[in-house]
């Protein structure tokens, strides 16, 4: 089979998703041989997006005209486009204050110079283009990235679990931070796949992988309120990676 051509690009982001690829130290030389890496400014001198590309991995949210331009170019010359990481899939950390005025945020940081900044509210990729597949996580799990690359060599995408972090946490037999330690843990609402990384080391899940399908937001809200957290605190924490929870929803 012909080697698949891939592109890896970053929009408004921290480069952590791209770094996850570079962190596959053992596999990297093989990846470099099995794929044609067509565009990857973080790791390659090539500056132009020309295509054709089989799969484009895009990290980050869209928040500037130049982000949009790169995204469109990649979409146009790629067979599939993959949202890589929480920012690309859900908006992520930069989107947490999307309900506030962007102008005011900018002023806070840049004063009057803010008027010249060309940027808008960070949005996930699917608001602008068709997204064929997503790997969630802030940062994504190395294992899921490698599984995806392996599946691509066979011409498919893998299937990832659709249950909450809680399930993984229970099967690791961790102490439940939410019930037994009264900590604000978002495990019940959040997409598994990280093997409950944070609770496993005694730290509450901060929700970095975004909502699991059918998350019972209202129940978690009620539980946390009962434990004495204020609504503001809860909302602030929940919006860290995904600003659009429906708090009143009942499932």
């Amino acid at each position, binding site marked *: 089979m012909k080697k698949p051509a891939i592109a890896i690009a970053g929009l*408004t982001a921290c*480069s952590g998703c791209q770094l996850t690829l570079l962190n596959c130290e053992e596999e990297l030389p093989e990846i470099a041989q099995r794929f044609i890496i067509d565009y990857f400014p973080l790791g390659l001198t090539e500056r132009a997006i020309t295509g054709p590309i089989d799969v484009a991995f895009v990290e980050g949210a869209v928040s*500037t005209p130049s982000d949009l331009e790169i995204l469109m170019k990649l979409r146009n010359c790629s067979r599939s486009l993959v949202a890589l990481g929480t920012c690309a899939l859900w908006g992520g950390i930069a989107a*947490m204050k999307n309900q506030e005025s962007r102008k005011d945020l900018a002023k806070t*940081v*840049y004063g009057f110079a803010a008027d010249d900044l060309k940027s808008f509210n960070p949005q996930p990729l699917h608001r602008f283009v068709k997204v064929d597949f997503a790997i969630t996580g802030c940062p994504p799990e190395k294992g899921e990235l490698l599984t995806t690359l392996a599946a691509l060599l066979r011409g498919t995408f893998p299937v990832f679990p659709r249950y909450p972090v809680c399930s993984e946490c229970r099967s690791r037999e961790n102490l439940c931070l939410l019930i037994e330690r009264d900590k604000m843990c978002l495990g019940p609402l959040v997409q598994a796949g990280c093997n409950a990384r944070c609770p496993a*080391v005694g730290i509450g899940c901060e929700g970095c992988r975004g909502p699991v399908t059918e998350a019972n937001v209202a129940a978690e809200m009620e539980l946390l309120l009962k434990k004495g957290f204020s609504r503001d605190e809860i909302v602030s924490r929940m919006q*860290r990676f995904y600003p659009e929870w429906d708090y009143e929803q009942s499932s």
Partner: protein
Amino acid sequence: MNRVLEIRPLTRVEGHGRIEVRFAGTKAEMVSLSFFEAPRFFEALLKGKSYEEVPEIICRICSLCSTVHRICSLFAIEKALDIRVSEQVGLYRELILHGGHIQSHALHLFCLVLPDCFAVDGISGLADKAPQELKRGLHIKAAGNLIQEIVGGRTIHPVTLVPGGMGKPVSREGLLKLKETLQGVLPETRRAFELFRSFLPNGEKLDTPRYLSVHPEGASPFFGDSLTMGNAETIPVELYTNLLREKMPETGNAKAVLVNEEPATVGALARLNLGMNLTPMAAAAFEECRMLVTDADIRANNLAQAVELILAVERSLEIVDILIEADFSREETTGIVPKKGQGIAAVEAPRGVLIHNYSFDDRGICRGADIVTPTVINQAAMERDLIALATHMEGADDEELTGAFERLVRAYDPCISCAVHLLRI
């Protein structure tokens, strides 16, 4: 004949940057370097967040430096809220910081710089032309990642580091595994040093930088409470605004910084020149290349990073031994009482001086934040050097210029994600 050479995006650097050179005839009249990363307004995101949330949010400024941002924010928060941490917590923080330096330096040297040394485009080219060297670099890098994974619970955006303490300490098996891995890569770091010593910079010398670093105190080479420029010019970090002056951006989204009205240079080369504490093998390597790095221009920074790779692995081994010996047990972080206050801390990030400054109200809610990153401090010096280089290279064609400019910027190891998020509320 006037013309403009634009290099965009800069490749093999972290983040999105651009260089523009304006020529009058063959002479370069103006060179500007801009970072056009989308601003994420981190300081504004922090405003209104509890001190507990601050480290978890701020580490997302940048993946390469997530560990050091997290630690610097903890130091500043703990100063503001008068929190003291145990010896155990202090040692783990230093250990993971070294993990971050190993990871970052190895990535920079082997994935971003080494392709230049072998005249290839990137990693795929290295896999063909210099597979042994690439493998060695990735092996060293993996050791840095392993420290972050084992101590921090995750390689990027580590999770265990929290105000006043930490999550679960590492098990004995974890520490032994780290020890074995680090012992395995120590000789590799020595070979890496020899490799980078063999690539001497060519071309005319650039200005000798005005080095700036955290004044090293105690055994840890990267922690301290004051800033130094050598010549006994040392000021407490709390007074950093007297030393650094911010310039609003004309182009790009990052603010530049001048130190005493001059460009300053931070990073591995600055640290070595300003006398940081070295471990035995690192000290020996430094002796061997003293002539090449003392008062050298930025092109020696890669060699300085190679010396620091040895240092970081050696010092990590020392700390792992102390931790194994001490056999600490799990401590619970005892109740922190929020209070009004301000805290300012500095840490040596892989790329140089990093400063975090926060103020909190009496409920521990963040009311102000200012973050000064090394790339922002270095930006003025980068521009100065680019102009000098363009002048030395008058008459060269665009391809040569592009290559040389990119190599120069790479020598600074800029981190553009970090650079564009500065500032004061």
